[in-house]
């Protein structure tokens, strides 16, 4: 589905992404993990057209999509969420969702003068759809709230909700879990699986919560210092010495125990 | 009767420092006539002030609209700058049949405007000044000059008419370029003028605007040391600003020979303002003309007194100087004829504009000297 070939993205002299090559199989839920500053978000941003690459190519379904602007990628079915929530702060939560689908009749200015009836029909449908998504995210009661007033986690949910408004092909999720209540995160995980199975979405998920990754993702790609460090099934990865060394650590429990013993 | 006259002058805006002396001039005339008690059986005259802003035609139009339709003025002394004058004349004064006498709008365009005989000015058209200036320069034996003008209808009209006249006489204008008023810096303009060169620099600008800025920069860099100053520049302010630095420069402005002007300046000093201020005397004359014409017509109706203005201003008749307005009124009331000379040797020609007698001035020893009249 997505293939990244020898991708570089440098900031001044700093190589945030430094020759990463990877591919995301169609129909998979691929996990992307790695230490802070490994270049995961930067990689996302390059794929999603927010940042131009320094060098390297990105392909989607065999077509070169390097450097295409984000709005075109959206119309090709590539959606993404942001690590720091990017809500439309002065719009209501429901409007945040209703604006998402592309090609709405009412988005052409002439139509707003000439095709009112049609627009109203479409709006009614969008409204229904948005409410379904809100129900799913447990924030229906906030439909009229300004998105800027949401709590940190609620913004994250809204971020995810937007990707559910359209039929996407591949969705990039940048730490949807950070700041989200774990019980709800479980539900979100279920939803991801369902979207994957029922609607055939491909997912690429950045997340630091290893339980979540382990439950959901296959395969898991590990990045470190701008390159791919390892790739494989979740349980393999968790055993990988290099990954433990760079990313997972030996675990908190051991330490507490050690201290108690001392 | 209480006769109201409006003044439409730029109290705020780019020429705000010129306006007060003009207003004072008009007030002086109005007061003189009021005090005499001789106008239309002891009518009093009050002036209603209007701010034309000089630059904003819409604001000026609104002001004149108010003066005419709300204050019910019987005539207007103004506008001040040509563009704004044209707008308010065409849009308000003419439709309402109100007389406007401008002391200072000098654009040649105003000579030909369709005014139903309602517009006059006590200053001459710049077309004339260009010729006079060309003659003066030629007489000094200067053949090459650079010209800088303030970029409005006044500056450009004057610069063009000067260039035409000067070249016809065989002179060369090395460069004729505009400067904008109120800019922060005139180095670029002076650099260009200096590069073009010339034996003198003609500054067709305003003394308290870009004109002085250009002169300042030209003096500082040594680009020119002889300047030619037309009416927008000649004034006490110029001497105050530059003192002996402009020794050897010269110029001209509309102002007639004779005691009229001196008397006026003395009267102004007594009244507590500077009568030498640019167009202050013209404003006095504009107001006086208008009121004397009312007396002659026996009515303050603009429709009837507009026809008297030319009679009052020109020969034949007894000459009337500033301070002698009462005498003028007496003569008129007695059925006599007057020739209003006023502070600027008023002589209206053509469609009612000053014929244009200019005094030639020279700057020496840090003072302005009048050397002759043309």
């Amino acid at each position, binding site marked *: 589905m997505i293939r990244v070939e020898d991708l570089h993205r440098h900031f001044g002299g700093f190589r945030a992404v430094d020759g990463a090559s990877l591919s995301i199989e169609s129909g998979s839920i691929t996990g992307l993990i790695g230490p802070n500053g490994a270049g995961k978000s930067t990689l996302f941003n390059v794929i999603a057209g927010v940042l131009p690459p320094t060098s390297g190519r990105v392909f989607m379904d065999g077509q070169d999509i390097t450097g295409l602007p984000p709005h075109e990628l959206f119309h090709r079915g590539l959606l993404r969420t942001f690590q720091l929530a990017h809500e439309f702060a002065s719009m209501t939560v429901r409007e945040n969702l209703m604006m998402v689908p592309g090609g709405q009749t009412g988005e052409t200015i002439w139509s707003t003068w000439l095709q009112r009836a049609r627009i109203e029909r479409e709006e009614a449908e969008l409204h229904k759809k948005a409410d379904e998504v809100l129900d799913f995210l447990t924030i229906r009661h906030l439909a009229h709230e300004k998105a800027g007033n949401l709590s940190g986690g609620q913004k994250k949910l809204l971020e995810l909700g937007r990707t559910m408004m359209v039929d996407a092909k591949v969705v990039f999720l940048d730490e949807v879990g950070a700041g989200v209540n774990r019980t709800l995160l479980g539900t979100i995980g279920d939803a991801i699986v369902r979207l994957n199975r029922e609607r055939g979405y491909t997912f690429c998920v950045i997340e630091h919560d290893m339980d979540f990754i382990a439950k959901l993702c296959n395969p898991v790609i590990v990045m470190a210092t701008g390159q791919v460090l390892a790739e494989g099934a979740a349980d393999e990865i968790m055993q990988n010495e290099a990954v433990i060394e760079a990313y997972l650590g030996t675990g908190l429990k051991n330490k507490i125990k050690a201290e108690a013993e001392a | 009767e209480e006769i109201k006259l409006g003044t439409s002058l730029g109290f705020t805006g780019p020429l705000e420092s010129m306006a007060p002396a003009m207003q004072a001039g008009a007030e002086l005339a109005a007061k003189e006539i009021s005090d005499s008690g001789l106008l239309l059986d002891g009518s009093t005259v009050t002036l209603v002030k209007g701010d034309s802003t000089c630059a904003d035609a819409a604001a000026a139009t609104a002001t004149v609209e108010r003066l005419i339709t709300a204050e019910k003025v019987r005539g207007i002394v103004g506008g001040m700058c040509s563009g704004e004058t044209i707008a308010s004349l065409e849009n308000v004064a003419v439709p309402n049949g109100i007389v406007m006498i401008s002391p200072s709008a000098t654009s040649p365009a105003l000579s030909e405007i369709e005014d139903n005989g309602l517009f006059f000015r006590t200053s001459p058209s710049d077309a004339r000044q260009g010729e006079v200036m060309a003659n003066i320069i030629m007489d000094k034996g200067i053949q090459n000059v650079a010209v800088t003008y303030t970029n409005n209808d006044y500056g450009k009209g004057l610069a063009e008419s000067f260039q035409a006249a000067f070249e016809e006489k065989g002179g060369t204008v090395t460069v004729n370029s505009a400067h904008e008023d109120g800019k922060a810096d005139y180095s670029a303009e002076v650099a260009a003028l200096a590069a073009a060169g010339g034996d003198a620099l003609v500054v067709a600008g305003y003394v308290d605007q870009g004109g002085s800025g250009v002169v300042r920069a030209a003096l500082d860099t040594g680009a020119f040391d002889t300047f030619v100053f037309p009416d927008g520049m000649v004034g006490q*302010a110029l001497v105050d600003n530059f003192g002996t630095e402009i020794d050897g420069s010269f110029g001209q402005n509309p102002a007639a020979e004779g005691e009229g002007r001196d008397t006026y300046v003395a009267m102004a000093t007594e009244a507590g303002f500077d009568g030498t201020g640019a167009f202050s005397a013209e404003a006095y004359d504009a107001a006086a003309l208008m009121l004397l014409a009312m007396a002659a017509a026996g009515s303050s109706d603009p429709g009837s007194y507009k026809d008297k203005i030319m009679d009052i201003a020109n020969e034949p008749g007894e000459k009337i100087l500033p301070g002698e307005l009462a005498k003028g009124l007496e003569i008129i009331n007695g059925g006599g004829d007057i020739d209003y000379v006023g502070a600027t040797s008023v002589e209206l020609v053509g469609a009612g504009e000053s014929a244009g007698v200019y005094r030639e001035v020279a700057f020496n020893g840090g003072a302005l000297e009048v050397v002759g009249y043309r």
Partner: protein
Amino acid sequence: MDILNAVVAILNFVVIPAAAYGAQLALGALGVTLIYGILRFSNFAHGDTMAFGTAVTILATWGLQALGISLGPLPTALLALPVGIAATAAMVLATDRTVYRFYRAQKAKPIILVMASVGVMFLMNGFTRLLIGVDEQRFADGARFIMDVRSFRELTGLKEGLAFKTTQGLTIVIAVIVVWALFWFLNRTKSGKAMRAYSDNEDLALLSGIDPEKVVRMTWIIAAALATIAGTLYGLDKAFKPFNYFQILLPIFAAAIVGGLGNPVGAIAGGFLVAFSEVAVTYPWLKIAGYLFPDWQPGGLLQLLGTEYKFAVSFVILIVVLLFRPTGLFRGKSV
């Protein structure tokens, strides 16, 4: 070929005037950029703050002159500056208290503050005119020239003259000192860093124990000082006329923005860029060509564009710069 005369001509008509003008713009732009950087709005009242500060300085200068105090070859106005700065600081602090503080507390959008500053601009504009009138005021005294055209010609025997005014020299020297001091203050002192922190993230500054009102006060005081200094130097070099100080606002903003809003280095660079592009791009090369190639008789002035378009040209340059560096030469902020 006469290279010396050509060089002197360029120095005299382009380099020196543009450098002095650039320094004046830079000082003004520093004030604008500081307010933008820390209080996060474009302060349209800055030009009139400059006018106000200068007006007070002029009044104080006259007072000193009346007392017979002078600074020898330097303008007396330098002695009067502290008075002007103090009055202006009091003035802007009062405005802050009555006007801006309210919007800060409201966390109003920057545009609201901009509009409020337009209101303040009108007010100050009127007050300054009430204070000192609308006429041009001259208050420069002391020696006018460090080097004047005539002495230069006598000294060197060159045909071209070179003038360097005391005020130009002063402007450049003071600009350098002020800029250095401001840098030192912002980057090295605790208060300076607190100001930068406040400008970055107001709430977090609060959590770090920084007193926001103190930062705001300090910003205004520095801005008032910069405005008064800039205004006075400009007035000394050119002339003081309240209306001109509104007009100078445009190039000042251009300088601040092209340099990168909120960035002091940018303000300086911007000031010089604007000044030099105004003067240099419209410079006619006729005279220089005359010195370099005495036999060549070109038809025109060898001028790229007439001076009528100097403002336009400088803006074109600014726009081109911004196209390549969308937040100014030195990566400014944008709210």
